[in-house]
């Protein structure tokens, strides 16, 4: 498979990158690790006129700690996150997600920014041009048909990023910069929930930082992922859990994020209603598992059936909850 022609741009500074992005806008794609964009171009799913490399911009790499936060720059590789004592110590489920992401050779190149902004996927979309040439254009490519759901009125492609559920569960924000301004928003607000256009990011905006708040209380976290084999798999469903307790020993914060169950991550907003105590009953946990199932929008568009994924979303959520409770009881 050969790549289509494009012009490569290699700005040396962030400012220059933002100007370049503003100038070429929708005609430009960004390459950091390249593990997503190059594959998309090889499959003919993306054909930008310009490809902007971030390799020369050193300020977009690295992990640092401030008084209340840890900041991961967007071009930091997944392997660098795995090796970071700062992340390992403070954000267990983020390390777990990084370790379960694809396989080590991908982790060595893939960046956290690229992983967050990876496009939604579908069995009928992430295919070769030859395969797709036999199908009518679907919603994902601007058509008016869904091949996964007969009579479907929208795109059901699945957001399968590994890092996002854990990052959201810790309450992370992201910094988006453009030529003359920047904005910091909750990572959860980046997602539109729409398969056709999954991110609320402008074409001239660059994701530069992921900001994870530090927690001073006792807390536990966990990330669980369903996959067919142990390496090189996108999650078929995943669940990240963050639990924290107050000085009375009661849970005061429960955040559960379900991944690969819809076109964006699904957050169980009211989890703390069901889980108030550390020794929550099995019924409470079952209720959370039921909610995870109700939130899911699964159809037959991944390598296993929607029915199986719907069963497993409950199992994965329960496992992740149990592991987070264990982590909490160990002291985070």
């Amino acid at each position, binding site marked *: *498979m*050969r*790549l*289509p*022609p*494009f*012009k*490569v741009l*290699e700005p040396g500074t962030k400012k220059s990158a933002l100007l370049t992005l503003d100038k070429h806008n929708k005609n430009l794609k960004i*390459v950091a690790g*390249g*593990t997503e964009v*190059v*594959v998309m171009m*090889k*499959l003919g799913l993306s054909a930008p006129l310009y*490809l902007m*490399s971030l*390799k020369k911009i050193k300020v977009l790499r690295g992990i640092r700690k401030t008084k209340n936060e840890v900041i991961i720059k967007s071009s930091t590789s997944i*392997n660098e996150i795995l090796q970071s004592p700062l992340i390992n110590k403070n954000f267990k489920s983020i390390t777990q997600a990084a370790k379960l992401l*694809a*396989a*080590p*050779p*991908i982790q*060595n*190149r893939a960046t956290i920014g690229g992983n967050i902004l990876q496009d939604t996927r579908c069995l009928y979309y992430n295919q070769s041009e030859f395969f797709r040439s036999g199908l009518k254009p679907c919603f994902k490519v601007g058509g008016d048909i869904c091949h996964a759901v007969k009579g479907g009125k929208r795109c059901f492609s699945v957001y399968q990023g590994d890092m996002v559920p854990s990052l959201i569960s810790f309450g992370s924000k992201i910094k988006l910069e453009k030529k003359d301004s920047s904005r910091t928003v909750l990572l959860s607000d980046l997602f539109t929930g729409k398969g056709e256009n999954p991110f609320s990011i402008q074409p001239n905006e660059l994701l530069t930082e992921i900001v994870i708040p530090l927690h001073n209380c006792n807390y536990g976290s966990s990330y669980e992922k369903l996959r067919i084999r*142990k*390496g*090189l798999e996108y999650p078929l469903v995943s669940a990240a859990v963050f639990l924290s307790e107050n000085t009375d020993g009661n849970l005061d914060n429960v955040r559960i994020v379900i991944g690969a169950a819809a076109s964006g991550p699904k957050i169980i907003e009211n989890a703390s209603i069901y889980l108030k105590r550390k020794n929550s009953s099995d019924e409470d946990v079952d209720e959370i598992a039921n909610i995870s199932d109700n939130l899911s929008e699964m159809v037959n568009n991944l390598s296993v059936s929607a029915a199986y994924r719907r069963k497993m979303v409950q199992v994965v959520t329960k496992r992740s909850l149990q592991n987070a409770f264990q982590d909490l009881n160990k002291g985070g």
Partner: protein
Amino acid sequence: MYKKTVLLKINNEEHIISTYPNRTLLEILRDDLCLTGTKESCGEGICGACTVLLDGLPVRSCILLVTEVEGKEITTIEGLSGGEKLDPLQEAFIEYHAIQCGFCSPGMILTAYSLLKSNPNPDEEEIRHAISGNICRCTGYAKIVEAVKAMSEKGS
């Protein structure tokens, strides 16, 4: 599309290549430099046949743009052996019958080589995790794990 001149450091040799930017490192290695030990299979970064070392770490050369690796140290399977003399890890793969059709072997060996450099005594789980991105359809992995484990026991 314009050609670009790129300086590549491959197996301790410098190469100045004039190339269109839409070419991958794998294409340059195989088509321009005749380093055909690096294999192409899926072309989508899945199978691991095209694995090379970039600054000592295994990466997929089939989805790595050549312009992205300028100035970095690249090691291919040809760089592991000293001419006709094989690296001890390659010898171990032969000794333990860890090679059948051989198509995955260059990538598999380089991945294992990188693991042993950073962790000279990996346990079986660590070995299996390290090679989890390299697909082998012949051996069932058991012989490959044995070969790598033998090297760790020898203290490679």
